[in-house]
């Protein structure tokens, strides 16, 4: 019997090792705090754990007052965008092994939107800008009796911008948006791009009026923060430049 047990012993090299990771989280509870402050939490995590797992563990085991938005936990719903080590990312798509755990990992709310509590910001200004660019199909003429057909090439033109999950990581990484909340922000322009370059849509003139505004695409300084921040890998700055070109030549 003893010999059989020895055969199934797992070598220690293969087993994942949990190690202590310190999270430095920017806390703000409006009922108690005048100003946000940093607090450290140390928990044991596997390298394959996500930052979202860490936040769940901290909330469940260390401090139940920690607040953050989460929903699907798989990078689709766009609820858990936050600033991790100074970069906007989704907590559910950031693995511990990709971060330097020798130093505390900083986690804070996304910048540029009103802070409500801990990781939670007021998303209303973000969605107000989104609504302004008319993010829906504006067709022309009579409704067809069958589906609106489109060639594969026409579909490919706006394929990149259909991936947006409205997490606000791009808009809240934009330095122009930080200092001027009036700017539409990259996410709204991505939403506009999705429809402007759709061959079935004819709302270009209406969207143009919004995007050509003082606070429209011309405020973009092409710093590429948005492209770096996008958890879906959308080339946001490229999309903004394509909208600029369409505005200059008045042609999609």
């Amino acid at each position: 019997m003893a010999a059989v047990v020895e055969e199934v012993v797992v070598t220690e090299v293969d087993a994942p090792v949990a190690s202590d990771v310190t999270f430095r989280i920017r806390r703000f509870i409006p009922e108690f705090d005048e100003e946000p402050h940093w607090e450290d939490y140390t928990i044991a995590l596997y390298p394959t754990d996500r930052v979202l797992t860490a936040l769940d563990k901290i909330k469940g085991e260390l401090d139940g007052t920690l607040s953050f938005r989460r929903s699907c936990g798989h990078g689709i719903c766009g609820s858990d965008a936050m600033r991790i080590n100074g970069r906007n990312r989704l907590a559910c798509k950031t693995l511990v092994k990709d971060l330097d755990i020798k130093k505390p990992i900083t986690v804070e709310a996304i910048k540029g939107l009103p802070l409500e509590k801990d990781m939670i910001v007021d998303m209303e200004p973000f969605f107000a800008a989104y609504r302004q660019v008319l993010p829906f199909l504006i067709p022309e003429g009579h409704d067809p009796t069958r589906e609106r057909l489109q060639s594969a090439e026409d579909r490919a033109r706006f394929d990149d911008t259909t991936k947006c999950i409205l997490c606000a990581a791009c808009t809240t990484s934009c330095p122009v948006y930080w200092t001027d909340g009036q700017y539409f922000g990259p996410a709204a322009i991505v939403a506009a791009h999705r429809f402007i370059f759709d061959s079935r849509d004819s709302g270009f003139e209406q969207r143009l009026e919004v995007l050509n505004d003082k606070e429209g695409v011309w405020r973009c300084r092409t710093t590429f923060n948005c492209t770096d921040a996008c958890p879906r890998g959308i080339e946001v700055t490229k999309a903004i430049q394509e909208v600029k070109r369409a505005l200059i030549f008045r042609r999609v």
Partner: protein
Amino acid sequence: MSAPSIDAPRSFSGRSMNRRNGQRSNFELYSWLFMRISGIVLVFLVLGHLFIMNILDGGVQRINFAFVAGRWASPFWQVWDLTMLWLAMLHGTNGMRTIINDYAERDQTRFWLKMILYVSAGFIILLGTLVVFTFDPNIG
């Protein structure tokens, strides 16, 4: 027992999200285009200017009143210098305007910074234009 009253969350800056509707203006489009075009033209004008002034026969050592007077006797150099002055000033002013728009947070600060900018830019453009056109080589 009543629920604790919680103040509304702190709001972002004083300015609201409402936008001017119905006012169509292509100003930002043209200013964006102007920056690109004037930038390209200025590369040639300024580099050419620096080359002539600092490197060609003797460089800065030969520049004196007579040299300037000789150059401005030709309409070609008058046009060159005038174009360079206007493009550089407008390009720089427009750049400063966007920087003020990006970084000044209060409307009052924005307004006054832009006023200082426009007045000084206008002064330099007028003075420069005046000198290029009314330069008198026989002065003094």
